């Protein structure tokens, strides 16, 4: 039909769809396909007062916090998954460096339920999780109540509706219909919970490729505001079928973010002084990228949609 292409540059996608003060879902797929390229563009554009949402966004949240973009974090875990704590998080929470910041602590499940509630269009969803914990005591979006159909205590997890979800996917067409596979985490609910979706794709493919497998189309284009073609856009996190996890990069970041001066140097080098992901990858070097590439393809068996 006559739908217009939604392809834009990363610069334009962030400029248009991530205003100051907005609530942004990043890193919905846990440790895979974290939208680092989008996060770095947010930093370069100096976005401020963001609420960042995501179960575990590995070091991306730490970087956004260290760069001063974030006034509030709604997450279950913030740090460096393979190396330990996040030093920017610590500085922000313990000493308000570079700015004061609010932490709203969720568990993975309650954050997933908050997004699921918004995706379902209900004000809350019930769970037994967090009963007896200080998460329940301290997070105002978790509230104990009595089940209307039984004598049980339950926790109402309030719906969380991000202004925008940035979802990194393996492939999409120019209208935003997206295939993703492997580690899904909260991506499907996240895309449906958000007011709009920015899809960042390793590959832009013909609509026929996406349409050939509508069960793998986990984000339909009509929910998508912008599509960015950004190969290697999730580095140093992995993208199944495209590249592996750059464990060393995470370790190096861990060391280089321990002191605030070192972090600022890191930020200059990897974010502020590169203009886009292409330059970032040039700096990373072809050898390193080559080493992360797919060594052995493993293609899914076909499903027949014929009749």
């Amino acid at each position, binding site marked *: 039909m006559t739908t217009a292409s939604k392809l834009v540059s990363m610069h334009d996608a962030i400029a248009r769809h991530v205003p100051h003060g907005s609530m942004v879902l990043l890193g919905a797929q846990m440790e895979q396909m974290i939208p680092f390229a989008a996060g770095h563009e947010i930093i370069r554009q100096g976005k401020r007062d963001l609420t960042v949402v995501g179960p575990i966004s590995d070091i991306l949240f730490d970087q956004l916090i260290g760069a001063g973009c974030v006034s509030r974090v709604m997450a279950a875990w913030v740090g460096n998954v393979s190396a330990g704590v996040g030093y920017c998080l610590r500085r922000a929470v313990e000493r308000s460096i570079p700015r004061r910041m609010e932490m709203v602590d969720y568990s993975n499940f309650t954050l997933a*339920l908050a997004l699921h509630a918004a995706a379902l269009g209900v004000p809350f969803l019930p769970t037994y999780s967090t009963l007896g914990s200080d998460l329940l005591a301290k997070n105002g979006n978790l509230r104990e109540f009595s089940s209307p159909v039984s004598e049980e205590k339950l926790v109402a997890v309030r719906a969380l509706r991000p202004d925008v979800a940035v979802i990194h996917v393996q492939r999409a067409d120019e209208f935003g219909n997206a295939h993703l596979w492997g580690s899904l985490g*909260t991506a499907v609910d996240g895309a449906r919970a958000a007011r709009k979706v920015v899809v960042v794709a390793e590959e832009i493919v013909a609509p026929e490729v996406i349409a050939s497998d509508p069960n793998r189309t986990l984000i339909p284009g009509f929910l998508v505001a912008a599509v960015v073609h950004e190969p290697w856009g999730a580095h140093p996190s992995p993208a199944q079928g495209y590249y592996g996890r750059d464990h060393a990069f995470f370790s190096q970041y861990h060391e280089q973010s321990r002191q605030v001066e070192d972090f600022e140097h890191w930020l200059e080098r990897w974010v502020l002084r590169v203009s886009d992901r292409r330059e970032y990858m040039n700096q990373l070097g072809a050898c390193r990228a080559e080493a992360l590439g797919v060594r052995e393809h493993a293609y899914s068996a076909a499903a027949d949609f014929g009749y």
Partner: protein
Amino acid sequence: MPAGAQAETTTRDYTLGELMVAAASREIADGELVFVGMRLPMLAFLVAKQTRAPRAVGLYENGVIRETPSPELLYTMADPPNLRNATQCSQMLDVMALLQQGRVDVGFLGAAEVDRFGNLNSTWGHRDGQTTRLPGSGGACDIACLSRRTVVLLAHERNRFRERVSHITSPGHGLGNGWREAQGLPARSGPSALITTLGVLRFGSDGEAYLASVHPGVSVEEVLANTGWTLRVADELLETPAPAAAELSSMRSLDPNHFWTR
């Protein structure tokens, strides 16, 4: 890791990490659903699979369910080898749903601090009189609330083993027997073992931890000195069994360079 324990293990045929992994693997019975986690628990799950629990099923919070070991060492649960040929790649909500249904037999956890009743804190650390912000729950609170039983692995240090944790990230037995049920948590759930760098603690029917076994070469006194409350000791205190040959060969095939089990 206390220097004493480390010194001991170097005189044996296995490391302290290997002892802990073997002990953890024995907490998994055949056919059980296991919320696995990373590092030592992941290795323990894989050892269990290759020894006494071949039909155990592993769940990961990103939505992955696996019955076969990942072909490579993992740094995170979403590393590509953990997804390829998985039993299922579902959503986080799907594996958490299995947990909330009561289908998950055992969940593995770590923590910065634990207390007398097995409550865990992984949100706020205490070091040299300073309070430090730690990464937080992740799925730990969910697993602690909803698994039938939980097994916690952590370093046995006095400042981590506290009379009362300052923040309950993951509820254990709360204030003792009946507390979990009173909170509305599932009946007959909660921590079942703490596998530490010095020994194994279990929980009495009153919900309080007691020392069930000490690792080879570790004295009861050493354990008590490294515990921040008056720890009860089992009438029949055991020595934690050394890893069996099959367990050692299994974990060494999975982690040949002792990356996790140093």
